[in-house]
């Protein structure tokens, strides 16, 4: 069974890197998932090493049954996007993941110097929770089987995602490109 990314990578995604980069890495992640927390610095390091060869997108896949704050955290990151701060919020949520059950989201917003009232207000907007649901839906249809799940140039990546393995795989794909 080929598991392929549906819908494909596009400028509707939250993207870091050059949109024309030959390597395309998509993570379906959950801000409260400890494995995603471990993957976070690995992705940062790989981005630094591959530079303009790699573009990276993050899609929400909150496992709400396992992680009670995951859905709200995903909505918070989408709300931060309305203050052009999706990535700072994404990074902050992973860096301070252990505080998720304790810290209200307006405190996260203040730490990032965002308008915390606006963030709280935007978090109530049903279009943002619909966006998170739509990401989850696309993940299920793409064959996401846990978090994090990575897709590289549209295909699900089933091997280890420790830094050495993932980087070697990406470099190999680049060499073939």
């Amino acid at each position, binding site marked *: *069974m080929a*598991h392929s990314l549906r819908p494909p990578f596009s400028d509707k995604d939250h993207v870091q890197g050059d949109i024309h980069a030959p390597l395309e890495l998509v993570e379906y992640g959950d801000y409260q998932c400890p494995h995603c927390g471990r993957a976070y610095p690995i992705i940062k390091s790989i981005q630094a090493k591959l530079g303009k060869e790699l573009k990276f997108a993050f899609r929400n896949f909150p*496992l*709400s*049954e*396992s992680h009670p704050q995951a859905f709200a955290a995903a909505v918070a990151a989408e709300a931060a996007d309305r203050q052009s701060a999706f990535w700072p919020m994404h990074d902050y949520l992973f860096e301070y993941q252990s505080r998720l059950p304790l810290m209200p989201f307006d405190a996260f917003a203040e730490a990032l110097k965002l308008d915390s009232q606006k963030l709280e207000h935007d978090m109530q907007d049903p279009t943002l929770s619909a966006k998170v649901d739509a990401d*989850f839906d696309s993940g*299920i*249809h*793409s*064959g*996401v*089987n*846990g978090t994090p799940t990575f897709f590289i140039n549209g295909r*699900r990546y*089933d091997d280890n995602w420790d830094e050495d393995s993932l980087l070697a795989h990406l470099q190999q794909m680049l060499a073939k490109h």
Partner: protein
Amino acid sequence: MLEKGTAAPDFELFCTPDQKIRLSELAGKKVILAFYPADWSPVCSDQMALYNETLKYFRKYNADILGISVDSKWCHMAFSADRKLHFPLLADFEPKGAVARAYGVYDEKEGECLRALFVMDEQHTIQWSYLSPTGINPGADGILDALEALAQPVKS
């Protein structure tokens, strides 16, 4: 492994320490069978946790999902409570693996079920089956594709 077009063999297995489920009791509903090697193992845990999150998708297609392994009903009870699962896990425990054998998905060497998925229609005819590499969680996309195909009007 039983293939598309085969009538699904009926079975009756414990789903809790004092309750059994018979496949034929689910007449009129589509049924997803997820055979898996073992409670508590990492891949199986992720797979069951995923289906726990996708139950609403299955329900949309009038489909129930049943997990099946050779673990005992008490083991299932503890695993299910620990992972807060909202669907039944069936114990293919005595005679061990008999249902998995009937579906052609028993691993004789390990003494466990293989990691296999079946989707059957309301008449319990198998419409899709998939054997996953044991170490890989197959996800839910194949199941949903099969359910979506069944929901399409039949072409005459």
